[in-house]
């Protein structure tokens, strides 16, 4: 019925337009032209707003991307980018054949695989947090757990150096009460990887749980009510309702984490490096800094080649993880 009447009014209005004829259509086109002109004007403002960002992108993103071609040069600051000699894949060969190659990869991977192993901890924490009945307690717990995220890397590593110091560090003081010999944790290569990963967990467990807490807030309460009527206990409901609710988010984040396996954050590794743990703390990103900026050798091309090698592996891993996830019928980035 309704459709019919709508059709009718359409027909009527069309007939009316026909009757009124060409006069109005001329007026209409003029008005449309003006509107179009105005619209173009509005859009010009939009492009104007985009301009600063685009300038930024060209200067600080696209110029450096163009500069990656340094990896195929023997870049010499004196001769500049255009005067430097092109050497093809020489720098890559140098890296792959260097005696440090496998150790750097092994060090990098052992940190990032350990990091992937603690990936579920924030999810578990969010699931637990979500079971708190008291809103005030939940809010307070969240506030406390976020605090460590806002501490700078320098302070975090500084705290570690202070707490784990063999002389008067609080950890060794406590160990001394039980008669244990002090351990110089920061200089000991056996402790580097666990301390790196666990301090990261300490810093970001609460923060990384935010996303999952958000996903849990969107769970339809009806699901829980229905499950309760069916006699499901709380644990059962966490397992069968809440956990599936956070899985899509977790999959996306996991894909991105896999795509970053080769790029362990430079900051903390560099700050935690000591002569005693260099054997395990020398990772790809710190090595890049070492050969190019720190030593004064200024081996820019070599450093760029290593970064590029690394980035390509990361990109392959990212695409691979995304592809597999898609094949398994899970979420994907694209």
């Amino acid at each position, binding site marked *: 019925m309704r459709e019919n009447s709508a059709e009718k009014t359409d027909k009527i209005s069309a007939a009316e337009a026909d009757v009124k004829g060409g006069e109005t259509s001329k007026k209409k086109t003029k008005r449309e032209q003006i509107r179009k002109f105005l619209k173009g004007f509005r859009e010009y403002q939009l492009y104007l707003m985009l301009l600063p960002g685009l300038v930024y*992108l060209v200067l600080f993103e696209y110029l450096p991307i163009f500069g990656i071609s340094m990896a195929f040069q023997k870049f010499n600051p004196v001769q500049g980018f255009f005067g430097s000699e092109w050497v093809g894949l020489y720098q890559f060969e140098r890296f792959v054949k260097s005696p440090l190659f496998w150790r750097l990869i092994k060090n990098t991977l052992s940190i990032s695989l350990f990091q992937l192993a603690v990936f579920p901890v924030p999810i578990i924490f969010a699931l637990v947090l979500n079971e708190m009945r008291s809103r005030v307690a939940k809010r307070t717990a969240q506030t406390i757990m976020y605090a460590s995220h806002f501490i*700078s890397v320098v302070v975090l590593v500084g705290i570690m150096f202070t707490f784990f110091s063999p002389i008067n560090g609080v950890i060794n*003081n406590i160990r001394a009460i039980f008669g244990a010999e002090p351990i110089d944790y920061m200089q000991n290569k056996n402790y580097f990887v666990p301390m790196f990963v666990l301090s990261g967990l300490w810093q970001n467990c*609460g923060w990384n749980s935010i996303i999952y807490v958000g996903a849990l807030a969107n769970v339809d309460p009806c699901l829980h009510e229905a499950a309760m009527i069916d006699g499901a206990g709380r644990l059962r409901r966490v397992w069968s309702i809440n956990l599936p609710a956070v899985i899509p988010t977790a999959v996306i984040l996991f894909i991105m984490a896999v795509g970053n396996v080769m790029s362990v954050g430079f900051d903390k590794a560099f*700050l935690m490096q000591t002569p005693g743990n260099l054997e395990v703390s020398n990772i790809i990103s710190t090595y890049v800094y070492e050969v190019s*900026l720190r030593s004064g050798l200024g081996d820019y091309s070599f450093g760029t080649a290593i970064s590029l090698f690394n980035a390509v592996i990361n990109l392959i891993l990212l695409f691979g993880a995304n592809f597999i996830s898609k094949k398994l019928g899970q979420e994907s980035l694209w």
Partner: protein
Amino acid sequence: MIKARSVSDKIFDCFVYFIVALGCLSVLLPLIYILANSLSSPKDVALGNVLFWPKNFTLDIYQYVLENDSIGISYLWSIIYTVLGTLISISLIFLSAYPLSRRDLKGRGVFMFIYVFTMYVNGGLIPTFIVVQALGLYNTIWGVILPGCMGIWNIIVVRTYMSTAIPWDLQEAAMLDGADAFRIFIRIILPLCRPIFAIQILFMAVGYWNMWFKPLIYLVGEDRHPLQLILRKMLIQNDMDNIMAGGVGSSTGAEELLYMSEALKYATIVVATLPILLVYPFLQKFFEKGMVVGSLKG
């Protein structure tokens, strides 16, 4: 469904509170330890007598921090970098996000590609360094502030917020009333973006406040170093001489100076970290909005 809570339910609750308490304590205790040490007499700090409660409470060490030149100057530089950097990056992010959120922007796909591409491919440390040098920004404060100031991820988050949380009809109505893009942006979009605006300011400010690597590589000499690099020196390189030399209290003996140097570490950590820890709880309710994670589809 009102039911007496069963025994298993109570056990479950206990378990939940136990886990959460464990997490909270693990975060809190180190922070309390630092605070307690910064409020104790330097001698007790140096001898390791302080745990979670100050011993021989005193604010002496804070007075020393305030009077110390090298800490004071670096503090000032940290504030300069934070204020300037946040201003610039917020402007860039919001100015870029708004046009990209407009569904009627011609060439939106192309522009999005130009932006998002740099998330997956970037020049990396050295080419960026060379470009900064070539632009003449090396050894200027702009070399510290500009590279990396426009986060693409932030733009995507803000853009998504603008296009989902603000009804398109509202903008269309304003357009019919003759408002141009600037006017819509300032009068409608920005006021409605308040939560995400606050969050972005917090994130940017924290980023600049905590930054240490860019000043390290882009500045020659230490006179413009921010607080974080002073902290690195004190805490990680354990180099207290320069910092102690900047102190005013010349009447103090060698032994006391040695004590001071330990206590000073804790007080400087507090001074560097407390400003942020006092601010973020007020913005906490917005955090979830600032963390939209989704795929890049659409």
